[in-house]
């Protein structure tokens, strides 16, 4: 990751020390029959730049909703969210998309690579959307990222020709396309075997060394054990927030 394109200026945080800051964020969903389901019930959370945080919790505890709010994929019902120096509640749909593309790298459980584009093209597409990386440099950057995740020789292949582990690594490379300061991942190893999961975990660990702020929803103990901090959600509330002193890096 020593290429000049990866050295994009880091945004200035809204609060001097926070890369992500939630203040009393709630999220409720209207159910059929007029009832509301509260997925998050007033969460406040501060994440420092370069911090690796894992989110644990049972199904329905609000993990994915939390991730979606931070990524600007969904909006809070009440409360404030700042990420990468921006108040997300003030962004319209277009600005949010541009902000997300620049500042957030998203890794999905099922990889979600676009099947009609080659692996390399999948990585270049977010660069096209955001336009932060100059057009002439996009292919070079995509190849550097592929080299970073060990897929340099798979660049011209379609996603369907790759194994699950390779697809997830390609998805991580795609998440880094615009050199975002924050990487969010929702069960990134949930669909992988243990050996491949370990390799992916190692890859995430490498991102910390590059100063990325990492927030991962996972059940993978190996992955969770490497985090600086582990928070536990239950019924839309943070029930535990502890530092992980055994984490490396």
């Amino acid at each position: 990751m020593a290429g000049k394109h990866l050295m994009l200026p880091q945004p200035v945080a809204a609060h001097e020390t926070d890369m992500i800051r939630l203040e009393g964020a709630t999220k409720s969903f209207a159910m059929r029959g007029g009832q509301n389901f509260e997925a998050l019930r007033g969460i406040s959370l501060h994440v420092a730049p370069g911090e690796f945080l894992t989110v644990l919790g049972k199904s329905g505890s609000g993990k994915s909703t939390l991730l979606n709010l931070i990524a600007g994929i969904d909006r809070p019902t009440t409360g404030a969210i700042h990420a990468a120096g921006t108040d997300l509640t003030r962004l319209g749909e277009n600005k949010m998309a541009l902000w997300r593309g620049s500042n957030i790298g998203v890794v999905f459980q099922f990889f979600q690579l676009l099947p009609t584009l080659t692996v390399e093209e999948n990585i270049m597409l977010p660069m096209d959307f955001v336009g932060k990386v100059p057009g002439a440099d996009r292919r070079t950057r995509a190849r550097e990222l592929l080299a970073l995740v060990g897929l340099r020789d798979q660049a011209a292949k379609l996603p369907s020709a790759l194994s699950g582990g390779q697809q997830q690594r390609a998805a991580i490379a795609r998440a880094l396309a615009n050199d975002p300061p924050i990487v969010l991942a929702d069960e990134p190893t949930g669909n992988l075997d243990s050996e491949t999961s370990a390799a992916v975990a190692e890859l995430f660990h490498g991102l910390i060394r590059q100063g990325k702020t990492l927030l991962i929803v996972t059940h993978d103990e190996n992955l969770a054990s490497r985090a600086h901090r582990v928070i536990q959600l239950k019924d839309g509330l943070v029930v535990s927030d502890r530092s992980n002193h055994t984490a490396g890096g």
Partner: protein
Amino acid sequence: MKTQWRKIAGDFRAHRLQIVLIGIILVLGSAGVVAALNARAILAREIEKSYQRANAPDIILWFDKVEPQTLDLVRSRPGVAEVEARASGFTRVAGKAVEWFSMRLTVLRDFGNQKVNLVHQDAGKWPASDGGILIEQSGKALLQAAVGELVRVRTPVGGVASIPIAGFVHDPAVAPSTQDRVIYGYVTPATAALFGQNADLDQLLVRLQTRGSMSDVAEFADELSGWLKSKNVAPLRADALNNTHPHAALMSAMLRVLEVLAAIAFVCSAALAACMISLWMKREVRQVGIMKTLGARSSQLAWQYLALVAPLILLAVALAFPIGTAIGRWVVQYHQTMLNIDVADWSVPRPLVFAELAFALGIPFLAMAAPIVRAARISVRQAIQDPGIVPPSGPIVFTSRIIRIPGNRRWTFALRNTFRRPWRLALTLLALSAGGALLLTAHHNYESLMRVIDSALASRGHDIEVQLQRPAPAAQLEAVARAVPEVEMAEAFRRAGVNLVADNESATVREGRRILLSGYPEGTRLLTLPLSEGRWPAPGELDAVVINRHVQTATPGLSLGREITVKFRERRSKVRVVGIAEEIGSPVIYAALPAFENITALGDASAVLRVKIKGDRQQLVAAALDQALLESRLTPSLINTKAEFRTSLEEHFAVVTGVMKMIALASALVGAISLIATVSLGVLERAREIGVIRALGARPRAVVAIFLVEGGAVALLSAVISIAGSLILARLLNCMAERQLLHVAVPLYVSRIGLALLFSGFFLVILGVWLSVSRLLRLSVREALAYE
């Protein structure tokens, strides 16, 4: 209620919009097939029967006057089924409106006891009594007169007689008055005498017991003629008739068009049904997996989905049949008027109804079977772990290599997505292109024909042609015409009916061989037809003639330089073809007046006047000309303006092109609706993919642009195929019109209106895609990512 049925009911409720959309497509497709097949079946049967009911003659024998004993003699001849004496001639008639129309007047002795060429009552008094005229019902609109009202009829000596309309009749053996711009009138001999027409019946219409080939009929007429001669009642002429409707060629072309339409409607409908249901089933894969995990067997799942779609298909068929039948009846009604036929039986053959039912039910069920089987065979793991982004099924490796827009991944992505489902793409393209090609073909064809007509009319030289009831000296005719204001030039032509005969041929004339000989003044400025071959005769060349291409078509082997024998009454003359002219209309031989005189020996007796006018007021000058001739006691029987000739031809083409345009527009519309529906379902199918793109930073307008490029690519591809297909189809139809209808070259003209309509459809499709995607973009990224 069993849980399974609850799920079906729930699916119906949850996806009612898409289900209604599929239903509409099924109804439209099936109704189109039913309409086209029903109309074709009814028309094919009724056109034939209607003409048969007219009991049209096989032979016409011409006399100075038919005596009762001649009629009895012919009736007694073995092989003769029926005989009837009649007379016919041309005059002019006007109804409430100021406009005068040419009228073919048929004189019948007894309306209540007709034997051949039967006309029957439509409205008013029947049978006609003396003192009133019966009018063929298709002329009602032109005359704007009702039963009991007076019409004005020209007398041969230049007077006008007023006569009441006794009633309207239907003559299924004539073309509609609106097309030929000719009124058909029917009177008794006593009424004919009232307005100075010859009341003597001079024709014998003969119907044979068994009609063989055309040669058999000609041979019979020849024998009959010889036999009558031996009885001292020799006919002046015997014509063996083709016994086909005057618009037989148009009718067969129209039936051919309906056949093609039925085929296209079938293909479109089947393709669309397959496409829509396959799209629908694609979305059910995950649920199939879940149900299989819960223990559902493939057969149970198949029945469950069958139960979901069956009511929709049954309802669609139940709606499509009455709609299709009604449209089919409307098409038949339209042609009933356009072709002037009697439709006595509106029923559709039962085997056809069963075939239509099998189609309407079978195609959607078959279309459904394939995706259900596919879904049922998928492994539970695959189904449940479906990431929501549908993997491509086609040759994506191939398309990923060839489709690459340098520097633009968004366009590359969009264009590759177009080929993501090759079969679905093929079906969509098929449906859209067929509709588009048909729409364009109808317009190319119509405009090619009208351009040829306009160019042919522009090269005619004259604007108005007048035919007189009785011939007059050329100088007198020209002098009268030149005195009419706005007449620039007037020339008297002569005309005579002649036959082309081979040296060894019998005296009987086959209908196709009776040809008009037109005599033109040497140095004429009003005969300016273009020649496709040869030259115009030189002055003083007595044996040289020019024929139009229609004569050449009707007489195989007749080529430039060929010597032919022309028979006028008992006179035979040998002439040489020195030129072949391009002309729309009937077969005509052109000879300069000295050559005309050489053939006919009729002397200075002109019955045709051609006039060129200064301005463009053809109708007004024609009326003034009519009046001037009447005042000089020169009664016109026919007055044709260039504009009327154009309208008449346009009406003829409308038989085929009218229905083509309507159905083409309908099928193009269905195609466009289908593409929108397909794209809408496709967009829903890829909702999660849209979510991913948005999560990667794509702004809504970037997502819309991707889908617009996809929809645009499909629409553009369809447009290209439509244009290519329409050029081939229109060329074929033009060739058919060239050979069977116009007898002049019909170059292909690409219709701008057609292209404009096609591209309007293109924008409609783009709009539909935009609306579909915009609707989905109302979902938040989270909702899109979780979309099922």
